[in-house]
């Protein structure tokens, strides 16, 4: 069996007296392409933030590389959900990408030539090198999202956490970026939140449905039953690149 890079046991998390996650246990092997899906408000982003140490669980344990999350940061890459925050901030694409090279052990030091070359490489991979001096506020949402992906790549992580990384990017680039993730996955473990069923069928090695609890499917296959359980309503499943559609008539949805 491969090394476990992430293990979560009996995790519970409540937010303002509402149970967000209950008795969540799962593990992610080294080299996995672990896709998390589930309805809005089902706790996907919360689960990711718990794994990154941004939130503290009420009970249960989370170990990343065998350690408590905030202490393992140098080996972790992160692409946040693009919510269009702080878009007026005076910062260029290159400066954002360089943030991926920051770490606790190098506080107060200037960026090295290697840091710059990693940032350049990452920006080229997402096709944003020619926009490196563009202020973040002058970009479209999709371009900003690409820069966030570049920033995570610049970290050169062993595990990459991504929260809907292609939200807002055009379909052509989306295919390109998932091919990039597939290449990256040869040495980097990927944990990815997405609603895109096509992505799951093509790239996922493991699929997890999160809706307060978790259900993990190792085969990377998705069935209609799984989705209906995850989303709490009937879902039409059309695989390979075409997004799924939720049936107009909902019966007994939560």
């Amino acid at each position: 069996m491969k090394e476990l890079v992430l293990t979560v046991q009996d995790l519970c998390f409540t937010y303002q007296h509402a149970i967000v996650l209950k008795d969540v246990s799962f593990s992610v092997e080294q080299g996995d392409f672990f896709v998390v899906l589930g309805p809005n408000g089902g706790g996907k982003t919360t689960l990711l933030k718990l794994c990154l140490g941004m939130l503290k669980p009420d009970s249960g344990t989370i170990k990343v590389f065998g350690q408590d999350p905030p202490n393992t940061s140098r080996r972790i890459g992160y692409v946040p959900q693009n919510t269009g925050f702080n878009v007026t901030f005076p910062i260029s694409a290159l400066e954002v990408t360089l943030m991926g090279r920051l770490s606790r052990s190098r506080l107060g030091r200037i960026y090295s030539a290697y840091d710059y070359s990693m940032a350049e490489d990452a920006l080229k991979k997402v096709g944003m090198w020619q926009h490196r001096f563009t202020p973040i506020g002058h970009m479209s949402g999709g371009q900003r999202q690409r820069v966030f992906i570049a920033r995570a790549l610049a970290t050169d992580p062993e595990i990459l956490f991504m929260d809907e990384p292609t939200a807002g990017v055009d379909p052509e680039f989306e295919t390109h970026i998932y091919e990039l993730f597939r290449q990256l996955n040869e040495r980097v473990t990927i944990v990815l939140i997405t609603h895109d069923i096509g992505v799951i069928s093509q790239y996922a090695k493991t699929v997890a449905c999160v809706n307060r609890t978790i259900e993990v499917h190792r085969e990377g296959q998705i069935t209609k039953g799984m989705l209906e359980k995850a989303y709490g309503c009937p879902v039409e499943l059309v695989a390979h690149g075409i997004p799924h559609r939720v049936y107009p008539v909902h019966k007994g949805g939560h």
Partner: protein
Amino acid sequence: MWQALHFEFMRNALIAGTMVSIICGVVGTLVVVNRLVFLSGGIAHAAYGGIGLAVYFGFSPGFFTAGFASAVAFVMGAITVKDKHRADAAIGALWAIGMALGIILVSLTPGYNVDLMGYLFGSILTVVKSDIWMMIALNVVILLVVLLFYKEFIAISYDEEFAFVVGIPVTLFYFILLLMTSLAVVVTIKVVGLILVIALLSIPPSIAEDYTHSLGGMMLMASLFGIFFTVCGLYLSFNYNLPSGAAIIMVAGAAFFLSKILRWIGRRSVSSSSMYDT
């Protein structure tokens, strides 16, 4: 203006104005991009409680006020660090409580007749050499801290969550920023008074923000704007016998609106000309 420079108090005022403008340009930029303008106003007003305590117990107001303002800033920081967007009510309360404490203590002090107006509206013309050395020392410390941790300050200001994930001690830097802000506020009180501090911290960076796209550029430009505003304000104050602090802020305020109006006109003419292009 030149004959004014024969007076030592005027030379001191110009040096003090320049020092405070640089401090406010650098710290104010961080205050503005971190949306801490209201919190800074709270520190400035609550600092009056420190002045009251110092006067009542007979301490030297300078250091005591700095300590008190930093303590208030840390309390505000502890409240805001959990939930930055819902802390305004607590800041508002501390703002008023500190002020009230100062007013009560000052009124209880027997035989007290320190110039209250000097603290409220500034007294740049009474700045002495020791004040100037304090300002220079603070300037050096703040510039060193910001230069050394420039990229970390960018990271925590732009995307605090990502900074946390890569291992930056976000809370520590937040408190360092609050400490710098409270020290900046205390020295700025000497120049424009506690009521007007918020203007010198926020106006120069807000103008600079429209003309630059880097944090460092914003700090540099805000400092230069601040120096320009204090020199102009002192000139008006000297020639027309106006209160110096208020004169400086009026110049800054006029420049702020002029800049915003010019930009608005500029944008309109750009958008209308591009309409003809296509």
